[in-house]
């Protein structure tokens, strides 16, 4: 016991004595551990936020296509629908007694690069994300008038829009469009709170407005004289012929597979019904390769700094010959002397781990509000999970292995050490 205490106090004194050199090595190690831990932490958070992009929706129904495609264009606003589904199909879904609610969405237009989603008030009431979080309006109200538009938080922030401003939507997707629906300008009625999901990156109008905009656009461009003016539009009522997709909520989740199978085998129209959770995890598996590669790279950075630490310890070894000779002559065993290297190395690694955690927590605390504000990505400060503790614990273990290099060589040389520095004479 007293030997352990002696070794610890000698190692501590020795590290303190060489603090200038070792502080730099420790800094390198701290930064690399912070990088490793940070990547793992953010990875977990991204996965968490990714898989909670949509919640509470039991099925997504669209025209027949692959499940990833359907998920991408309905939830992530990436890519386009292969086809629409008929209004009658939507009505049949609404009438189905097993189905609690249906959110219809109609896509196809854009506003300065952001998707226009035509829907109804079910979207505002029923759509959920994260841990059963519902949409909340930051200001204004959900669209009531035909020409009302509600902006996602990201759109409002990036384009610096205020309530009451008039905006003109464009025909088709893309950031720059030459075909604008300028005969029917929209008024901003509401702005949503940030959600950290693709909901922030879209604008929302009513299904009727979508129809009204496209009267006279059957050929793909607005034909003068056939498009509607605002007054003409207000005098008519619009019933869509088709929608792009629908989100379904079932009364009993246990019926999900039954309804899904029925929809997939529907004779009236070729449909695809997908489980958003399953599709999301399949999508994550595809993207997960990259983040795993990133984690592996950061692990190599840690290994590199540990090798650097070993190199510094080996260099210091030359300076420590006298000290080793003194310790040997006073009766210290080669094992005690070798243990100094191991203790110093593991001690530095532990200090680096603590500093890395403090550094990482500080950094997250500082940038987390900014991330949510700017990118709608929520990065909350939380305790480390098992995987992160595992990574952290691997660092001192790796340091222990690395320290065996100088420790063993010192152990071997100090066994043969004679009086003084061991030089003959």
């Amino acid at each position, binding site marked *: 016991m007293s030997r352990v205490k002696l070794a610890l106090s000698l190692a501590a004194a020795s590290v303190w004595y060489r603090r200038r050199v070792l502080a730099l090595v420790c800094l390198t190690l701290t930064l690399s551990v912070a990088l490793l831990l940070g990547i793992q932490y953010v990875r977990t958070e991204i996965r968490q936020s990714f898989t909670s992009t949509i919640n509470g929706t039991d099925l997504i129904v669209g025209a027949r296509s692959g499940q990833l495609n359907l998920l991408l264009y309905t939830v992530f606003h990436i890519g386009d629908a292969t086809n629409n589904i008929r209004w009658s199909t939507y009505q049949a879904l609404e009438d189905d007694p097993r189905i609690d609610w249906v959110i219809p969405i109609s896509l196809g237009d854009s506003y300065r690069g952001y998707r226009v989603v035509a829907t109804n008030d079910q979207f505002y009431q029923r759509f959920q994300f994260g841990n059963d979080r519902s949409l909340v309006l930051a200001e204004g109200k959900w669209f009531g008038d035909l020409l009302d538009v509600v902006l996602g938080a990201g759109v409002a922030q990036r384009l610096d829009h205020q309530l009451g401003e008039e905006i003109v939507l464009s025909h088709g997707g893309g950031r720059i469009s030459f075909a604008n629906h300028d005969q029917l300008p929209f008024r901003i009625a509401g702005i949503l709170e940030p959600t950290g999901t693709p909901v922030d990156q879209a604008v929302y109008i009513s299904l009727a407005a979508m129809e009204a905009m496209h009267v006279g656009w059957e050929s793909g461009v607005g034909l003068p004289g056939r498009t509607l003016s605002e007054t003409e539009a207000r005098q008519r009522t619009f019933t869509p012929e088709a929608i792009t997709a629908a989100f379904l909520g079932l009364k009993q989740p246990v019926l999900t597979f039954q309804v899904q199978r029925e929809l997939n085998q529907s004779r009236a129209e070729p449909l695809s019904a997908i489980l958003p959770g399953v599709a999301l995890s399949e999508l994550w598996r595809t993207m997960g390769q990259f983040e795993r590669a990133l984690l592996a790279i950061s692990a190599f950075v840690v290994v590199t700094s540990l090798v650097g630490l070993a190199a510094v310890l080996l260099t210091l070894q030359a300076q420590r010959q006298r000290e080793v000779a003194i310790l040997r002559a006073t009766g*210290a065993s080669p094992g005690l002397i070798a243990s100094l290297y191991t203790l110093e190395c593991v001690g530095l690694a532990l200090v680096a781990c603590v500093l890395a955690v403090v550094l990482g927590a500080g950094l997250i605390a500082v940038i987390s509000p900014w991330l949510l504000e700017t990118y709608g990505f929520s990065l909350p400060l939380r305790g480390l999970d098992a995987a992160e503790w595992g990574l952290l614990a691997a660092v001192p273990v790796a340091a222990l292995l690395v320290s065996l290099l100088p420790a063993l060589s010192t152990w071997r040389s100090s066994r043969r*050490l004679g*009086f003084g520095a061991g030089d*003959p004479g």
Partner: protein
Amino acid sequence: MIDTSTMTPKSPAGSPPDTPAVQVRALRYRWPGRANELTFPDLTLARGEHLFVHGPSGTGKSTFLSLLAGMLLPSGGELQVLGRTLTTERAGRRDQFRADHLGVIFQQFNLVPYLSALGNVTLPCRLSKTRLARTTPSLEAAAEALLEQLAIPGSHRHHSVQNLSIGQQQRVAAARALIGAPELILADEPTSALDADNRDRFLDLLLGMAAERRSSVIFVSHDRALARHFHHQLGLGGQP
């Protein structure tokens, strides 16, 4: 080239206990990779007596001390230190023996650079319970008393040994060798870096305090003028 030399007995101080401090018979050592073998003169040193070993460079003075300290194993001959045949003992036992019974002083760079003067002095007692038990009233007090006797200013005791002069460093090393009253003190030219005044003062202090503790001293130097301070002297390399 080296053969047995004579031991010139002077007045022995104190009566020796049962076994001699050191007994050497036909001791030989060969450095790995070297053709010639070093041979050492026979020697019997009674407990509490002080021996001066001299000889030119290359005659194996430090090697002799390494063998006595049990840090090197001889290639032949007999060696007994405090009645123990170190040559047959395992490395760990020899290390512990050294910690328990030997004090050592080197030519220079005697101190662990990252310990304070006090930390250096107390080091042997942290490696040996035997020596710790002999410090009275406490380890700290014994170390302070030694440093006081050796005229190390109080202000220097708790600070880095880097700021000490060479003479002070050697005296701190002497305190480390003396603490816990080891039976045998081995000194390898500890005065070679000191001027004449400091050297004589150092020798007087070391030998006087060793005598108080009834410790035997084996002191190696090429400077034969120092021999007058010792009970016996021994020449290596065929010197008288």
